[in-house]
């Protein structure tokens, strides 16, 4: 782990009862959903983490608690260091408070995570879909969403597939 972030990690562990994992020199800090606003405010105001590099999520289906991790990849320009915060989210409790008032970039990023994983960011100022079409009622990056291969048409199944085509219904 980078020497510069060791005291910051310690502060986070003491203040938020956070756990820390390390892999290839990167620190992954786990905090609870209701603490994320305070944690990011603390990091931005006290520890010069001005840039929220990435905000994304990952799905551990079929595991339910926690099913998702919301990932906040932080950068500090002044200290030239990085830190990753992870918020575990249960499959039946998809609410995470928004951080778009702390980092403006979170506005679009949270819309994307909401669109792709169905995680609801409470208090988001603009909760519209961003990447998928308006009529898609699903969250494509969830692990239980099918990849959507189209079955190839051969002679033995030509008619069956033909029936399911849009033009066949007219």
């Amino acid at each position, binding site marked *: 782990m980078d020497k510069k972030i060791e005291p910051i990690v310690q502060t986070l562990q003491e203040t938020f009862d956070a756990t820390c994992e390390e892999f290839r020199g990167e620190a992954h800090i786990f905090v609870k959903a209701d603490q994320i606003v305070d944690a990011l405010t603390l990091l931005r105001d006290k520890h010069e983490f001005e*840039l929220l590099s990435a905000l994304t999520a990952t799905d551990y289906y079929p595991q339910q608690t926690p099913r998702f991790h919301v990932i906040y*990849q932080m950068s500090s320009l002044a200290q030239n260091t990085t830190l990753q915060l992870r918020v575990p989210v249960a499959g039946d409790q998809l609410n995470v408070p928004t951080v778009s008032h702390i980092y403006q970039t979170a506005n679009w990023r949270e819309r994307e995570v909401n669109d792709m994983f169905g995680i609801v960011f409470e208090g988001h100022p603009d909760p519209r879909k*961003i*990447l998928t079409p308006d009529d898609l009622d699903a969250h494509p990056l969830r692990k239980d969403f099918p990849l959507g291969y189209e079955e190839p048409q051969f002679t033995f199944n030509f008619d069956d597939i033909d029936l399911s085509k849009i033009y066949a219904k007219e």
Partner: protein
Amino acid sequence: MPQIEEASYAKYKHLVSERVLTGETMLLNMGPQHPSTHGVLRLVVELDGETVVNAIPEIGYLHTGVEKNMESKTFLKAEVMTDRLDYLNTVGNNLAYCMAVEKLVDLDVPPRAQVIRVIMTELQRIASHLVFLGPFGLDLAAMSMFLYCFREREYIMDIFELCSGQRMMTTYFRPGGVWRDVPEEFESAVRGFLKIFPKRVDEYEALLTKNPIFLDRLVGIGMLDAKTAISYGVTGPMLRASGVDWDLRKARPYMGYEEYEFDVPTRTTGDTFSRYIVRIEEFRESMKIVEQGLKKLKELAGQPTLSANRRFVPPPRAEIGVSMEALIHHFKYWTEGFPAPKNSVYSAVESPRGELGVYMEGDGGPKPHRVHMRTPSFCNLSVINEMVRGHLVADLVAILASVDIVLGDIDR
């Protein structure tokens, strides 16, 4: 017939001003089929006469589900898709992806491969900035710029074809190095380019930099201050034009960038002109790096261009004919792939547009559990509304061109 959706007040009522209701301002739809949106971007613009009050970007028209697709492919096969994200920075995308894989499985890259990677990404940076400059001129009615820039870009495309057999979608970098060593003609081809290009950059500058019409359209237009830029996650030349000296090649050197001498051009004004001039200066800095890279390449002649860690790289072609084990390895490598640990890494490179980060998570098997591409254009576009307020529609086109967006990069 599907209903053609009009820009309606109801959908955007929390984003536009109250004056839309009274008819004082109007909502105008710009794009997604519009030449100055550089792809399939749609802007819902609120106009007061000809002055922009708000501009709301609507993206997703080029969403291809690359991140989802990668989860079903092995680490090697998923790399091919990274070319298609930012189609002007294909080599840089490969680099970001390969570095993430290398970090995840802890794989080394031999020095010669690192030098080749640096030369290729810097050439790509020049090519990408040329495609910024050409359409930028086109949007400001300097049409000949477009033709000149694409003429020079062709040299770089030829160099890529020489090395990898492909002009754009090269997939030349592989985890652990590069696909094969550069051919003998490589050095003379790059030297040929370096010989003509400085003069050409001077020509562009002679056409544009002091042109009063050009300056009238750019100076003081689309101001972006450093604090707003960082809050919106803006990186790359846009951030440097706003006065923040932040370049990942200097800040967190990768691929041996710490051994190269180059400057990071910055400006403090943060207007459209400074975003243009920062990129022009980056042409010259990139040429410096390529020049030094060629020198290093000569020193490292004959050294391997792929890691010796056979767990993650294929056996050399010559060995397959004589060794049974190599043949089995070759077969297993390309069908099964290699396993990655059940953990995650984040690695970032400086693409021509900014911080291109890859979040990669393995699940113990040969396929990634999750790949997220942190693309710079996504953040750079989100700040557009802050820059265009109070300017004319014609300025909106200039500002949008100065952001240098690539829609494939935004929508993924």
